[in-house]
């Protein structure tokens, strides 16, 4: 196991390096100027600006100096936010996004699992259909529509929760619900399919025959075996939830990293794009590693480390 993890960490660094390099060159190919004032600046002024940010040098030279800086732990400074340190920008913005993502994941996977189990146990009854309906609706209504309706009806009309902004725990309620729709849907659907499959397998019949309680059968035997596809999807989903959603953050005025990242791509804020990409990629790869390890824990028959058949 230790050897396996050591190997994976090595690959992780390699993968991150490749991602960073590819993103760097792709990003530089994107047309556009990072200077908002571009319209009003004279050519002489533009030269000064390019020089200040090293943008006057050939791209390979910029690449080498950027990579060297990363190794030194320097992610550079932002264009759109008057020279702020990228590490600081990300640090300030990741918190709210991560909190919302975590809450949404928690709520989503709990409710989703329950809906999925209900669907599987009551297969092809109205309970199953309505659980499917909820799950499908959660997916087929775009999040901005759901968020907008939630904000208007629950926030403005009913006044139960604050409409927007980020000032305390109660401000997280509406965005969390809006964000949880997708994890609810995906968990419910996968859970239902897997549960149906597992419940029809021999060992469950055996467990039933042995007289195990209903609860035991579902939560000890069936659930565990149904988890594989769920954690496969939820892993990366956790990353995407925690790294923020442009739509939710915009509608509920959450100072998160998702909105900042999309903006930085649109305004060619190179160092912010790179910094955020590295962070997202790192989280993603980490989660995949964790999920791969979890496979073995959930289902001992899965052996990744050896891989020899």
């Amino acid at each position, binding site marked *: 196991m230790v050897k396996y993890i050591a190997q994976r960490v090595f690959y992780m660094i390699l993968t991150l390096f490749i991602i960073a390099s590819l993103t760097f060159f792709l990003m530089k190919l994107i047309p556009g100027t990072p200077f908002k004032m571009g319209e009003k600046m004279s050519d002489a002024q533009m030269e000064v600006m390019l020089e200040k940010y090293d943008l006057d040098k050939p791209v390979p030279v910029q690449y080498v100096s950027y990579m060297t800086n990363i190794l030194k732990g320097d992610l550079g400074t932002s264009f759109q936010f008057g020279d702020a340190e990228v590490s600081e920008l990300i640090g300030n913005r990741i918190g709210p996004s991560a909190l919302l993502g975590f809450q949404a994941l928690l709520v989503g996977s709990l409710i989703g699992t329950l809906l999925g189990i209900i669907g599987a146990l009551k297969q092809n009854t109205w309970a199953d259909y309505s659980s*499917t309906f909820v799950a499908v609706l959660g997916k087929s209504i*775009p999040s901005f529509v759901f968020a*907008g309706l939630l904000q208007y009806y629950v926030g403005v009309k009913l006044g139960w929760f604050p409409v927007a902004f980020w000032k305390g725990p109660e401000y997280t309620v509406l965005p969390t619900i809006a964000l949880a729709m997708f994890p609810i849907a995906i968990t419910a659907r996968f859970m239902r399919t897997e549960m149906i499959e597992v419940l029809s397998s021999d060992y469950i019949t055996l467990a039933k025959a042995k007289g195990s309680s209903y609860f035991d059968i579902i939560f000890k035997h069936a659930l565990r075996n149904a988890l*594989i596809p769920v954690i496969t*999807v939820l892993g990366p989903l956790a990353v995407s939830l925690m790294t923020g959603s442009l739509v939710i953050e915009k509608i509920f005025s959450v100072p998160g990293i998702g909105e900042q990242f999309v903006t930085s*791509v649109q305004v060619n804020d190179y160092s912010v794009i790179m910094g955020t*990409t590295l962070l997202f990629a790192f989280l993603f790869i980490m989660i995949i590693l964790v999920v791969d390890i979890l496979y073995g824990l959930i289902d001992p028959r*899965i052996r990744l480390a050896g891989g020899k058949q």
Partner: protein
Amino acid sequence: MEHTEKISKDQFEPAIIDSKKSEEISKPSLNFWQDGWLRLRKNKGAVISLVVIILLTILALIGPMISNYEFDRQKTAHANLPPRIPVLENISWLPFDGMRTLNNGTQVNVYEQKDIEDYYWFGTDNLGRDQFSRVWKGTQISLYIAFLAAAIDMIIGVAFGVISGYFGGRIDTFMQRIIEILSGIPNLVVVILMILILEPGIISITIALTITGWVSMARVVRAQVLKLKGQEFVMASRTLGASHSKIMFKHLIPNLAGVIIINTMFTIPNAIFFEAFLSFIGLGLQEPLASLGTLIDAGFKTMRAFPYQMLIPAVVISVIMIAFNMIADGVRDALDPKMRD
């Protein structure tokens, strides 16, 4: 036990043991797919959904033609009209009477107000374009994206996942790194790049989807294969000398049907809304083309003033999604080898 005498002897007959008969197959010989189809037909929900999808597809194709107005014909004087349909307009509880509710709650017939003779079945948008034509034109594009995404998922995603999980070892390690790299590079950067190489539009969207759309499927399939490949039926098959490709296609993939289908059902709306998101940030379809995603997006902005502009495409997309999911559930049940009777 004491009552055994009551059963008369003539109730027993010796069985004729015919070794030929025991080999006989009582059910008609059906292959995997035929069998699946037979069972799918029995599932009412799935059949109805199939009909709905076919109807919607037909409407998407002919819809823009049966309306009297082209989907891109503008008439600003007719901007933001509510829906009005002949005959149905007389039924007041249906939302097709050309009435609009103002802020203060009063209802006005906008058509009479503006003295308009035309009938816009689904109303008009902010440029006075016919929403009926636009919704079906949009359905065309959204269905195209849905099928495209499903195909990419099924072909690239499944193959990638099965191969990676089945062979394991170095091949798996290498293929998983590819997935990590593809997921690591921001999609947005790749897509924006497209407008340099290609023009923004349906082709860029197709390519963007092709690059990363299948990643989730590949991972789910791989995980299932990891779980399945150690199981007895695979071992048995291997012991009997089945080739790798036979094991993968004949034994693994049918057992994966459930997750493959469920995952596809998530890829489809993801793809549809990814396209809407791209349009939202200016990289998707270029006006005057529309998709359900862009129509909902535009409608959402005017939701409180003209709710129908969002409602109609939202209903269409929801119906499509629910129908797809019902079919998916039916197909899943029908193909599941464990549930064959």
